């Protein structure tokens, strides 16, 4: 939970609130929050997309409402209040999906109601929306929700492509492709997420080493300039 607190309030611009969820503080790849839906419903790109959008919807609305009433809720009952707000929107989403596509509702099963206990949503409500004005909270919810959707899509597309040879139901490989059924099974979810985390670790390391090298180069350049500027040091 300590990771939640890193992104509290601050005087950041509105666009930054939106952008940070997409990459720098991506809920899945960086913060590793909300694992159950991430692993459970990403066996096809379609399921992943619907799940991501549903979560983004709940996250945006609950963030807005929580930030609207943040001065009126007593500290002691705030978590219970947040959970009630979240549960209300999840019920709405559950019935919406059922109305739009019954097949999708069956495919996602109990995992739509389980959005209630997604630590990402409660985490954003507690760490961000309860401290910031409504506009910022709404943008934060949108950004985090989109970041979550993108991450789910990454997983869903990988698993569907390898496990079923298709993307969004469109066949990509020839019929002779031997499908890796394991990618569609639960263990495939663990493996795929593990692999994506490794990719992200690698990227993070690269960028951090680059910034260190850049910083070193800067200080080196400064010292060189200094030594050149001071007269009499060169023999």
């Amino acid at each position, binding site marked *: 939970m300590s990771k939640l607190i890193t992104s509290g309030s601050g005087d950041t611009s509105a666009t930054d609130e939106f952008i940070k969820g997409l990459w720098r503080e991506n809920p899945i790849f960086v913060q590793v929050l909300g694992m159950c839906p991430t692993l459970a419903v990403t066996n096809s790109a379609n399921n992943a997309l619907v799940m991501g959008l549903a979560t983004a919807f709940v996250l945006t609305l609950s963030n807005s409402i929580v930030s609207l009433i943040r001065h009126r809720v007593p500290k002691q009952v705030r978590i219970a209040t947040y*959970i*009630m707000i979240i549960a209300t929107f999840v019920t709405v989403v559950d019935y919406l999906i059922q109305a739009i596509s019954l097949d999708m509702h069956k495919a996602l099963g*109990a995992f739509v109601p389980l959005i209630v*206990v997604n630590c990402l949503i409660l985490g954003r409500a507690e760490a961000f929306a309860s401290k910031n004005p409504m506009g910022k909270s709404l943008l934060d919810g949108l950004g985090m929700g989109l970041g979550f959707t993108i991450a789910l899509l990454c997983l869903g597309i990988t698993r569907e492509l390898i496990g079923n040879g298709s993307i969004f139901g469109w066949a990509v490989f020839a019929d002779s492709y031997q499908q890796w059924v394991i990618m569609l*099974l*639960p*263990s495939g979810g*663990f493996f795929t997420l593990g692999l994506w985390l490794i990719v992200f670790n*690698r990227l993070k*390391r690269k960028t951090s080493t680059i910034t260190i090298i850049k910083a070193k180069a800067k200080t080196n350049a400064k010292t060189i300039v200094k030594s050149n500027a001071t007269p009499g040091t060169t023999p």
Partner: protein
Amino acid sequence: MNDATLWSIFINASLINNFVLAYFLGICPFLGVSGKLATATRMGASVTFVMLIASMSTYGIHALLLMINAPYLNLIAYIVVIAATVQIVEMFIKKTSPLLFRTLGIFLPLITTNCAILGLALFQTNRGYNFIQCIVYALGAGAGFTLALVLMVGLREKLELANVPDTFKGTAVTLMLAGILSLVFMGFAGLGS
């Protein structure tokens, strides 16, 4: 109504459709507290306990909501009941056995946000289990959760001695291990049916 036998429900919940390894419920504590054997068994025991009580109370709530014809309130009612149950269990244990309370520590309140509990309530409603079946289902799910947690502890202890590349360290390699464990549990498929 569901006419599955009690034994098959138990085997199904604990081994074949293990909550952690097949349904991905309760991954957070699974990755979080699977460092030491003592904490893992305590966590497993307290989750099983809360599951049992939550299962019984949500069974009652569901029946009540069906009676007043408001099944759309299911989700909100469940989460409130689970939060209240955890709170009551915490107070009860604190009063009756301070020793047990101290051993469980922070894990008790954290169980509220454990998706395994809400998942259990939702699954038992979907499958239409009766009261006895609900209890057995909760016991099986708790046993499965504890089993997965304890197995994971063993694997992670081995991992600490292994030479893992830097990029793989942390959550990534733990997830890989969980994947292998999940594969192993696939071997139980077809056991209870």
